[in-house]
């Protein structure tokens, strides 16, 4: 094998990969452009949906089955989308923007539903959302509404000076401006409320609209309010999700409905390079689907350590299957629960031990065989779980150790630059290799959770083969990276690592592709209910 041509292949592959990423980013650019030109917007959505269902389009974009379309959005961009939606609804329903916004928030940004309901019964919709469209001046000086018989007095602070400014929203419950501001500030700053700040009057469900909030509160509180509103735009929208990485302010838009989470794992990558599942927000868990991940995590929380201990330290009564820990004494056991007497060593009935007390030499006897068999069976399910759990946990642990590997690798790369004539760009292959390794470990980890729930069919053999291949390749790569550097062998190592990295990457893609395909085709059968 000529190493030169091999290297070219790698380079080509890497190039292809970057192409892939670019094509995803292209979508986001498209979307951004479409914002400026509202006519394009529909086209974009059509495109997006085509990609999900149309194989030809997918081919063109070189999209893998396990990948989904998504766009990453900045908070500025979100504000834009929000304003656009509000503007659209305001013009359709012919109402001020702040009311349209309140309505949209009430209907969780489901424009179609809002318009449909509004057309049916506008009064009811407005009432439910807490909007009254009557023209009411929001801020009025107290002297304008005070009469000698009924001087204005704020119900909150009981102040009744004529210089007061009064505030009310469309329900016309008036309070003095200071109290109104204090109330809003309390709601926004302390309670983090934004979408549904109701009028301070007890029992009044009218929502204080954005414009009033803007006019009444100070600038910082208003900024905070906008931020909170922005957040509800994402929180309430089924197609948007915040990146869960700490301090990351991006949101991801993805049009995978929650109903297809049993057939697809929508892994997305944020601008901050955090990879997570759009469906559940957890870090990337391909190829396991969200319902399985949830079940698996619950099981592990409940079981793992306890199960380990039970399996290591106890046996079951051959008759009633109570779990027994032997913490001393002889081998003549009497079950506390069912009073069955048996031998701890061979698990056979004690009655057959005759005169050879405390000296079990009856291992091959039929009855003890049977006892052990039933024991084995009931332990099998536990063993099976532990088999998968141990491998799952092992990869998780290894992935953690990769943090160390990162540091070591950095040092290695420095060393390489000093001891050989390789340039900075040429030693980047090590970092790339560690990245791939970590990614493969995460994938492998989840293959075990996936496999645990898989009912055994001929298809599972294929899955396990793919898993085995990936695991072997990953371990090889890991071994290569751990090796100490030898000056004269650097070129060889570099070649090896490059080869392996590409190979491992391909194995991962094969596994993910096949699993994703199987999910779409309904090829896998799980022994648990996915609902």
């Amino acid at each position, binding site marked *: 094998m000529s190493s030169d041509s091999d290297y070219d292949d790698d380079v080509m592959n890497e190039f292809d990969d970057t192409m892939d990423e670019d094509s995803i980013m292209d979508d986001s650019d498209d979307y951004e452009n479409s914002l400026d030109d509202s006519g394009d917007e529909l086209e974009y959505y059509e495109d997006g949906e085509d990609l999900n269902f149309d194989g030809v389009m997918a081919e063109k974009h070189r999209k893998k089955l396990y990948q989904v379309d998504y766009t990453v959005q900045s908070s500025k961009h979100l504000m834009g989308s929000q304003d656009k939606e509000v503007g659209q609804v305001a013009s359709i329903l012919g109402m001020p923007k702040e009311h349209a916004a309140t309505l949209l928030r009430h209907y969780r940004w489901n424009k179609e539903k809002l318009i449909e309901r509004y057309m049916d019964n506008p009064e009811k919709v407005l009432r439910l959302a807490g909007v009254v469209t009557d023209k009411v001046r929001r801020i009025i000086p107290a002297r304008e509404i005070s009469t000698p018989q009924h001087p204005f007095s704020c*119900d*909150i*602070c*009981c*102040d009744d000076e004529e210089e007061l400014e009064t505030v009310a929203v469309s329900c016309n419950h008036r*309070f003095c401006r200071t*109290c109104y501001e*204090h*109330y809003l500030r*309390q709601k926004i700053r302390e309670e983090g409320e934004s979408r549904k700040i*109701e009028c*301070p*009057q*007890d029992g009044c469900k009218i929502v204080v609209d954005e414009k009033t909030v803007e006019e009444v509160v100070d600038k910082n509180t208003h900024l905070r309010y906008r931020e909170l509103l922005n957040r509800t735009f994402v929180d309430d929208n089924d197609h948007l999700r915040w990146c869960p990485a700490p301090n990351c302010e991006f949101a991801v838009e993805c049009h995978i409905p929650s109903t297809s989470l049993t057939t697809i794992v929508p892994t997305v990558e944020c601008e901050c390079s955090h990879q997570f599942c759009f469906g559940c927000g957890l870090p990337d868990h391909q190829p396991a689907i969200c319902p399985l991940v949830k079940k698996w995590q619950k099981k592990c929380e409940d079981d793992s350590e306890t199960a380990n201990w039970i399996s290591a330290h106890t046996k079951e009564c051959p008759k009633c299957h109570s779990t027994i820990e032997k913490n001393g004494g002889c081998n003549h056991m009497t079950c506390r629960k069912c009073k069955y007497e048996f031998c701890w060593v061979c698990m056979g009935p004690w009655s057959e031990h005759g005169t050879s007390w405390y000296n079990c030499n009856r291992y091959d006897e039929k009855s003890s065989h049977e006892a052990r068999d039933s024991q084995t069976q009931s332990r099998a399910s536990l063993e099976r779980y532990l088999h998968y759990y141990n491998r799952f946990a092992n990869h998780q642990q290894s992935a953690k150790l990769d943090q160390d590997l990162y540091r070591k690798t950095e040092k290695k790369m420095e060393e390489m630059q000093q001891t050989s004539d390789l340039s900075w760009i040429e030693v980047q292959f090590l970092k790339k290799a560690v990245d791939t390794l970590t990614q493969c470990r995460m994938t492998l980890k989840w293959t075990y959770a996936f496999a645990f729930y898989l009912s055994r069919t001929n298809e599972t053999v294929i899955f396990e083969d793919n898993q085995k291949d990936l695991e072997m390749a990953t371990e090889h790569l890991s071994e290569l990276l751990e090796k100490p550097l030898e000056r004269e062998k650097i070129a060889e190592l570099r070649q090896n690592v490059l080869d392996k990295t590409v190979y491992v990457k391909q194995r991962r893609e094969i596994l993910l592709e096949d699993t994703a395909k199987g999910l779409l085709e309904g090829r896998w059968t799980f022994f648990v209910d996915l609902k």
Partner: protein
Amino acid sequence: MSNMKRVQKEILAIEQDKEAHIEVILPEDGSMNHMTAKISGPVNTPYEGGLFTVDVSVPPEYPFLPPKMKFVSRVYHPNISSQTGAICLDILKDKWTPVLTLKSALISLQSLLSTPEPDDPQDAQVAAHYKRDKEDFEQTAKYWTEVYANPNAEVLPDGVKPEALARLVDMGFGRSNAINALAEFKGDEQAAVESLL
């Protein structure tokens, strides 16, 4: 304190309204952020005839934050802790709005006494009792009202607990003798009984 004016006005309103059967006692130092309220038990409930003492503290953010209230008298009620007097009432928590007043909160307490919510309990044991055997629950509640919220109760000497006194009276000892004995032994029931025998 910026809410002084409002609190003053509220207390005045409570004093003027004789129908509500609510009384507010301000501390002698003249401060307005801590006071004691007395509410009478609603009629046709096991709490009828009782006068319950409620500890009220007004936070500086009042009326934008609710006042803090808890029962000082022990009350046998699903939504009131039988140990600490803590109250589970929505308007003292998230349903509070600044137009509500001390008076409206205290009236709500009264209505809480007449309409317990055993499905949203503060005191799980009491709530379980209520759901299991309402009649028996009411008897206990009535007993507690008589013992802990009796407006006619004489002022007992230090160390004499009303429940201990009630038990001694139940045993057949004279009331004043029992009080003296309990006071003498600083509340030690056993010793008091022995001295009385």
